């Protein structure tokens, strides 16, 4: 029997054959992998062999939502995209908010699988009546916002479009997919835009209004009422200052990247680009995703540069870290311009900032010259040069061709000492959190299934002070202590697998959307009977399945390492702490029931039913 909250239908589009078909979603798969990230991982594991070319016809691009998506539950309307990454060559997922996920679910599907490669550039139009593969025509070549505007003009304001920009079209390996036009939300990480571009798919327009049935709507309402006050109060800082409200604190504890993760203190610079400064200077508006009360999105006024006079997207914390402090750019307006360029061209701001920081250090150390970079003067702090390099990356011009392949490839091309300051894990450039500032971040970066990532463990805000009462583990009090850290990371990784499969926003944790309410929402919507043990076991199943995909692709202990800049080089002028990653990995594998090389054992796989 189909569980409530699901349509029980997956849409499959074969672009090589120009054909759309439907297939049932097995209820056992739904209860074991929930939706979003978990469902996407199951499909990828079953259908995409590890040797598949990420930019070839055999790779899948999977969009998946969860049972809560399309309901009115707080923060529930995100979606997850899964593929084999062209940047890292392993399991990849990216998760985004906005309104696309909800509108897709309301077309009557739980997931969309895209396979094959179209001969000509196309876009998909999906609604309750069916799916059409349309010629992209003049949309091909245009920037993301323009494409989104034209598609909404054609399909109406209820329609939502996920689109790629010039970078995705050119299969730049750090290209993203964006939704929601100028209120941009990004499927940012792992080069999903390049996968979409490889399939010659410019956009996916969705336009649905059907609401999925809920098992116990009154109970959902009751729980929402119980959470209403804390959801607003606990997230007030995010509303007021966006995700960069913690910028000064992150600088204070040595968490932000400064000068390609080389330098330590940067207090004045951090203040200049903080959420507080943004709110007091260029902020003009805020925006939110579907079913969200937080409003962490920012709109700012551009007062200089190519977008002078326009209202543009305000950079969020990770972007300010990678395109600001990491490049020693302390001009908030300049960072906003770099962010806008990335959004319009369809580039991941984290990887773009990471790779430009790498190039700036290579330039300073004399590994590359201005001539190598077609005259771009990549000195630290040179925002104009960063702007020029973003364009070069997006259009694969000159040295931009090298950098668009990501830090790992760029370092391999430069050779020599470049590997010492190539900051990545498993080929993915890290977000703006330093493992030398928090032990759980070190463990999380090393073991995340998609490479360096703060969201797959989401421990960074809970390592000191803040606490999730129903996580079932003691509070962590000292960010440099090793005690209890591995166990905490593992538990949080399972919780995050559930968040990404229910497709809920993790910021809900600050408003009380923690383990028990999430479990109850899942039960109230589907009619299932999950308890905390089954909830966490389901998360563990997903995490292990992703790991198994990576093991098939050649990943093992040797890859669960932090780069020299994070594990060997001390942070300049800051703390002297270096995470002892080898001993932490020993404990991590033991607690996970993996062998010494980081491979899940047959017993563990049997226990999890995979």
């Amino acid at each position, binding site marked *: 029997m189909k569980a409530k909250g699901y349509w029980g239908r997956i849409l499959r589009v074969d672009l090589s054959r120009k054909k759309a078909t439907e297939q049932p979603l097995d209820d056992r798969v739904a209860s074991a992998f929930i939706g979003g990230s978990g469902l996407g991982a199951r499909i990828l594991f079953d259908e995409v062999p590890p040797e598949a070319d990420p930019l070839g016809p055999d790779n899948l691009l999977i969009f998946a939502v969860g049972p809560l998506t399309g309901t009115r539950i707080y923060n529930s309307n995100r979606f997850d995209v899964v593929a084999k990454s062209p940047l890292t060559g392993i399991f990849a997922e990216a998760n985004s908010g906005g309104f696309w996920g909800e509108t897709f679910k309301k077309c009557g599907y739980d997931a969309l699988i895209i396979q094959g490669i179209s001969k000509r550039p196309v876009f998909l139009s999906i609604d309750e009546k069916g799916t059409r593969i349309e010629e992209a025509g003049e949309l091909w070549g245009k920037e993301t916002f323009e494409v989104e505007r034209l598609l909404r003009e054609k399909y109406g304001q209820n329609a939502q479009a996920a689109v790629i920009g010039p970078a995705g079209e050119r299969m730049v390996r750090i290209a993203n997919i964006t939704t929601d036009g100028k209120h941009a939300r990004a499927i940012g990480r792992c080069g999903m835009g390049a996968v979409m571009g490889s399939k010659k798919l410019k956009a996916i327009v969705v336009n649905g209004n059907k609401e999925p049935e809920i098992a116990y709507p009154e109970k959902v309402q009751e729980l929402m009422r119980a959470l209403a006050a*804390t959801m607003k*109060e*606990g*997230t*007030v*800082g*995010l509303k*007021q200052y966006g*995700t960069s*409200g*913690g*910028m*000064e*604190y*992150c600088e*204070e*504890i040595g*968490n932000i990247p400064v000068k390609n993760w080389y330098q330590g203190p940067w207090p004045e610079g951090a203040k200049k680009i903080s959420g*507080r400064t943004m*709110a*007091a200077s260029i902020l003009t508006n805020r925006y939110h995703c579907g079913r969200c009360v937080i409003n*962490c999105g920012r709109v700012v006024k551009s007062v200089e540069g190519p977008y002078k006079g326009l209202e543009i997207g305000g950079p*969020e*914390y*990770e972007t300010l*870290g990678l395109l600001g402090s990491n490049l020693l750019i302390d001009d908030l307006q300049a960072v906003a311009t770099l962010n806008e360029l990335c959004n319009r061209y369809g580039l991941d701001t984290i990887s773009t900032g990471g790779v430009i920081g790498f190039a700036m250090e290579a330039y300073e150390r004399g590994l590359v010259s201005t001539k190598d970079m077609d005259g771009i003067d990549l000195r630290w702090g040179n925002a104009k040069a960063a702007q020029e390099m973003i364009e070069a990356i997006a259009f694969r011009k000159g040295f931009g061709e090298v950098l668009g392949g990501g830090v790992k490839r760029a370092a391999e091309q430069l050779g020599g000492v470049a590997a010492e300051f190539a900051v990545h894990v498993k080929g993915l450039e890290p*977000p*703006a*959190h330093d493992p030398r500032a928090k032990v759980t971040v070190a463990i999380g970066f090393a073991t995340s299934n998609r490479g360096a990532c*703060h*969201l797959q463990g989401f421990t*960074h*805000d*809970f390592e*000191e*002070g*803040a*606490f*999730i*009462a129903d996580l079932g583990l003691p*509070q962590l*009090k000292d960010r440099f202590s090793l005690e209890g850290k591995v166990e905490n990371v593992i538990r949080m990784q399972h919780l995050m697998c559930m968040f990404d499969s229910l497709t809920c926003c*993790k*910021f809900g*944790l*600050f408003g*009380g959307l923690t383990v028990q309410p999430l479990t109850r929402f899942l039960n109230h919507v589907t009619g299932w009977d999950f308890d905390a043990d089954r909830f966490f076991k389901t998360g563990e199943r997903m995490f292990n399945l992703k790991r198994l995909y990576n093991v098939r692709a050649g990943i093992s202990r040797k890859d669960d390492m932090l780069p020299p800049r994070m594990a060997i080089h001390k942070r300049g002028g800051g703390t002297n702490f270096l995470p002892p990653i080898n001993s932490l990995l020993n404990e991590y594998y033991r607690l996970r029931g993996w062998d010494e090389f980081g491979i899940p054992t047959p017993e563990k796989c049997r226990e999890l039913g995979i």
Partner: protein
Amino acid sequence: MAKVLIGSPLQILTGNVAELEVRGATVDEVIGELAQKYPDLKKKLLTPDGTLSYSVLIYLDSKDIKSAGREKAPVGESSVIKIFPVVGGG
């Protein structure tokens, strides 16, 4: 005396106390008193040199005291101080 509300992710540092009355004529006096009462919370509220840390957001009657430069703002009987952890990133 001011009413102080502690955000739920921080309540473990106050032994699950969510709301309490604290003495003090100014915001920093109230925070100092609170820090003395709850040593675990003190680490979040104050830097090692005793200044207010950026690790929490402190609101006096719905205004962020750091942005408004109101650390020494007077606190009345009807004042409400709310304390939440900052969110760094996303």
